[in-house]
């Protein structure tokens, strides 16, 4: 495992945004983290990168055998951009408007590898070519606003991968893009992943994206893990009512009509007691309002009282 996160808790003051979440990824594999906005999926990944500002992080984040919780900021900084990298949702605002894309791609490489300006520049052109930007040498000298949305995300990917990291965290990388461009970006990530044996964490609210790329899926709700299993298992037989609700609300999922999950996500300041999904759950029991369900199961983990009971009966 290149990354193992155990019992991760992230809080801002009194507010727990992520509450006891565990996951891991190995090289060449993709973990999909799915959830609504506010489910804690982005905060978890920022914590892995050490980019959680003003937040307190507890639990364990082990990267290639090294514990990152409590590691010095300097150590985290030296890992960021060199061994683990991240790309973001909106590639235009995530690129600096005043520097050329060549400079921006070269910057991290030059810093982490201590190369000359010229060598870093060559590396940037090479990376831009690798992510499929035509005429990379000429385009390296242009500014981000001259690129289309898909091309900008390619630039972000080139920037993230310039130092050949082991782990790539992609936070909603295709959300801001056209559907056809989405597919190209996902294919690009998959191709580079296959070539380099990269571990990928794909954070998204789009189950279509997860179905396409993920080997394993972690469904998050209200800062906690709801369901965690191999992707095939989740799509073949979603066990948590929330996951079932998510699948039913995806167009083209084989259902006759789309079903919305009633209600809205829980507020992190004042989350419901017991199972956080119980106010919106169609099959909630009395116990769901009072007891927090544990994440149970071997290969297919679910945090649901209903499933827990069935599980106990089956064994």
């Amino acid at each position: 495992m290149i990354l193992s996160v155990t019992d991760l808790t992230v809080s801002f003051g009194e507010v727990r945004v992520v509450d006891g979440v565990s996951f891991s990824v190995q090289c060449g594999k993709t973990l999909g983290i799915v959830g609504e906005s506010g489910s804690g999926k982005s905060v978890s990944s920022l914590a892995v990168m050490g980019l959680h500002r003003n937040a307190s992080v507890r639990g364990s984040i082990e990267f290639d055998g090294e514990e990152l919780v409590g590691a010095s900021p300097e150590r985290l900084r030296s890992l960021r951009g060199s061994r683990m990298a991240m790309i973001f949702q909106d590639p235009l605002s995530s690129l600096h408007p005043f520097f050329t894309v060549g400079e921006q791609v070269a910057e991290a490489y030059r810093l982490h590898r201590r190369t000359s300006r010229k060598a870093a520049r060559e590396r940037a052109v090479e990376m831009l070519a690798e992510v499929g930007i035509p005429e990379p040498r000429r385009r390296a000298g242009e500014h981000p606003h001259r690129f289309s949305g898909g091309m900008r995300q390619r630039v972000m990917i080139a920037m993230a991968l310039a130092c050949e990291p082991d782990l790539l965290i992609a936070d909603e990388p295709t959300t801001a893009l056209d559907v056809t461009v989405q597919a190209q970006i996902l294919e690009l990530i998959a191709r580079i992943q296959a070539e380099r044996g990269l571990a990928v964490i794909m954070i998204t609210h789009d189950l279509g994206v997860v179905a396409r790329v993920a080997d394993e899926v972690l469904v998050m709700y209200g800062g906690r893990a709801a369901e965690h299993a191999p992707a095939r298992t989740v799509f073949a037989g979603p066990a948590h009512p929330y996951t079932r609700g998510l699948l039913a609300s995806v167009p083209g999922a084989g259902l006759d009509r789309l079903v919305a999950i009633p209600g809205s996500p829980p507020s992190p300041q004042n989350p419901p007691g017991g199972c956080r999904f119980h106010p919106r759950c169609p099959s909630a029991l009395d116990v769901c309002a009072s007891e927090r369900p544990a994440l149970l199961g071997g290969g297919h983990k679910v945090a649901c009282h209903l499933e827990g009971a069935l599980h106990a009966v089956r064994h």
Partner: protein
Amino acid sequence: MIGYLARRIGAAAVILLVICAVTFVIFYVLPTDPALAACGKTCTPEYLARVRAEMGLDQPVHTQFWLYVSGVFAGREGCGFPCFGYSYQNALPVWDLLLDRLGASVSLAIGAAVLWLVAGVGIGVISALRQGSALDRTLMIATLTSASLPVYFVAMLLLLLVVRVTRILPYPAYVELTTDPVAWASNLLLPWVTLAALYAAMYARMSRAQLIETMAEPYIRTARAKGLPERIVVGKHGMRAAMTPIVTIFGMDLGGLLAGAMITETVFGLPGIGRLAYDGIVKADQPVILGTTLLAAFFVVFANLAVDLLYGVIDPRVRYS
């Protein structure tokens, strides 16, 4: 680009012409008679008429205006290009007076600009990086106070404290840079501080707001995600974006000050353009008022143009066509 430049310079010329015309008309409708003043106490009607004719005041106002404008561009008899007329007070060419006074005003403006840029941006950055801290709040209260105090009050206060009470410095007497650089600087120190106190306060508040806004941008998060050290994240990625609007405002402020800071120069007795304009206004000296007004307008208009052109260089998203 060349077409754009030509249009902008043409527009600037029109603006200057309009300012000149407005100043001319204002002066024309004023109930003062410079001929009467020049004629002296023992003035006979015949002598007055002769003086008036010599000064060109017997001509209709549009003829006077035309003579003036053509004089500026082509010179006229007995007054070479660029002719801004002669002062009513001492019959010296206004252009020579302006040139003579320009050194003091430019010295004042540039020295103050260096001070306020360093102090203002420095304070703004420190405050922004420690947003909400006790230091930040103290600095922001101090800058608000400094920006609220009138220039003449700060000038008087400095004169009182530094010159009268503690006698650290003598009363400023302008010395040219080429004569004695040390005396030049020490005599300009109080005027510099006076002007800089006002502008530094405004620049500190602007830089703070700009940097705080920039540091919340997603591209700053990208810079951190790349593993850049914080000094590069702030110093390169943050400052590059935060300072861009400051540069444009700085250009215009400096342009406005190059043609004289009337109050500061008057309080400190600096022989600059602002002081010249003040004396011209007090004595109803039309050619001097016109000359100083046009020079100030020229600096402002061209500072604006320079800033607009510079913006295309510093912000790659702006390109002129």
